[in-house]
């Protein structure tokens, strides 16, 4: 699919903005130490960069989170779902608690050097606060973009309702998005044995 980048002006672009955040990173660092914390961040960074679609980029490293940009809503959402799958697969093998939550919003952003700023960036940054670990939460703007391009069979959407977020004057409809096959995160895990350490 060709990226649908739209140049509105010399400094304004449209696209999907995602924020990721590792839940409990402060506690993890306190318990396991800085070396393990660095390892956790390195794993997140590796998995994210391996799954960024063409045209997407890491705008900024935010400590235990990332600010990502995607040229279209669909690729951004599919990448977010892929990331959650990969985080859970990694956690199952490495035992690193990759409790990552992701928020995604579609809109306009203004360039400031390599950075992007603007109201729609701020909205995306608030959306991630509503998501829980392993979740992908998106705004109605993302859903509207998807509706323009496909029938949405690749993903299941569940409305969370009109959500009021800090610093934003109006409620925004948010949706929790999953792949249809994985309604419960636990369903993805397989294998068991009695094992106490």
């Amino acid at each position, binding site marked *: 699919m060709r990226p649908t980048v739209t140049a509105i002006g010399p400094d304004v672009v449209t696209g999907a903005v995602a924020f990721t955040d590792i*839940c409990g990173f402060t*506690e993890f660092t306190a318990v396991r130490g800085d070396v393990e914390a660095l390892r956790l961040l390195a794993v997140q960074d590796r998995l994210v960069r391996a799954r960024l679609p063409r045209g997407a980029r890491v705008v900024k490293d935010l400590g235990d989170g990332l600010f990502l940009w995607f040229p279209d809503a669909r690729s951004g959402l599919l990448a977010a779902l892929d990331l959650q799958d990969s985080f859970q697969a990694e956690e199952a093998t490495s035992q690193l608690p990759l409790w990552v939550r992701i928020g995604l919003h579609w809109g306009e952003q203004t360039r400031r050097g390599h950075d992007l700023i603007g109201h729609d960036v701020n909205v995306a940054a608030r959306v991630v606060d509503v998501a829980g670990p392993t979740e992908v939460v998106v705004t109605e703007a993302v859903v509207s973009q998807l509706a323009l391009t496909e029938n949405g069979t690749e993903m299941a959407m569940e409305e969370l309702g009109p959500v009021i977020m800090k610093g934003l004057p109006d409620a925004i409809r948010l949706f929790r998005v999953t792949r249809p096959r994985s309604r*419960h995160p636990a369903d993805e*895990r397989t294998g068991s044995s*009695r094992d106490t350490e």
Partner: protein
Amino acid sequence: MDDAAIDCCDAVVTPRPPEIRISGNSGSITVKAEERSDVVADGAAGIEWVGDGSVKVVLSKGSKSVAVGCPEGCDVVVGTNSGSVTLLGNLGAVRATTLSGAIKAEHVTSADLRAMSGSIALGSCEGLCRAKTKSGSVRVGSAGAAEVMIGSGSVEIDYVDGALLVRAVSGSVRVGGGGRERMEVETMSGSITVSLPPGCHPDVRARSMSSRPRVEPPAGEDCEVVVRTLSGRIVVRSA
């Protein structure tokens, strides 16, 4: 909350239990399911029958509290900035988010309850109960299945019949399960206690970085129990 029916101001009559949609900035929101066929609101600026099967309760500016009366079985969607959300009686699927304020629900068919800071209390939920709070406790009486995500605060679930997933950053977790489906509880720091029915023979995977887990029930294949903590005590026991 008293038992008196809400009887007041604006009302709309709907052909079947509608979805009630409420969003407001501040002030407490109470929705009470009762034996009635209409939807009424006390303290609201108005009620609109949207026509897609939902009723929109329009809140006044400021921090006025609102009380809504509706038929039993209504789905409810609430979003508020600050102020408590209280859902009384037998409701359908409920979804509520609040930035600061507690969420309380009595009896629902399914729930997605999210608070940034504030506790969540749910009496009973027939299906999946999903609860998330950054700081505050989560208390659930019974649920068909549950997913709980919490930053700091305790988690107490008396009984989950089906699958359970709890992720808590810090705080103790105490859960009881039906012993038939997978139960998974993880904390960064905080003790975990899982209670299973007498006679249940679970397949347990338990890991604590700070102490040896205590697993009381004999091993078996009745259900899978996965419990992990970086720092905290783990107990798996028969109820």
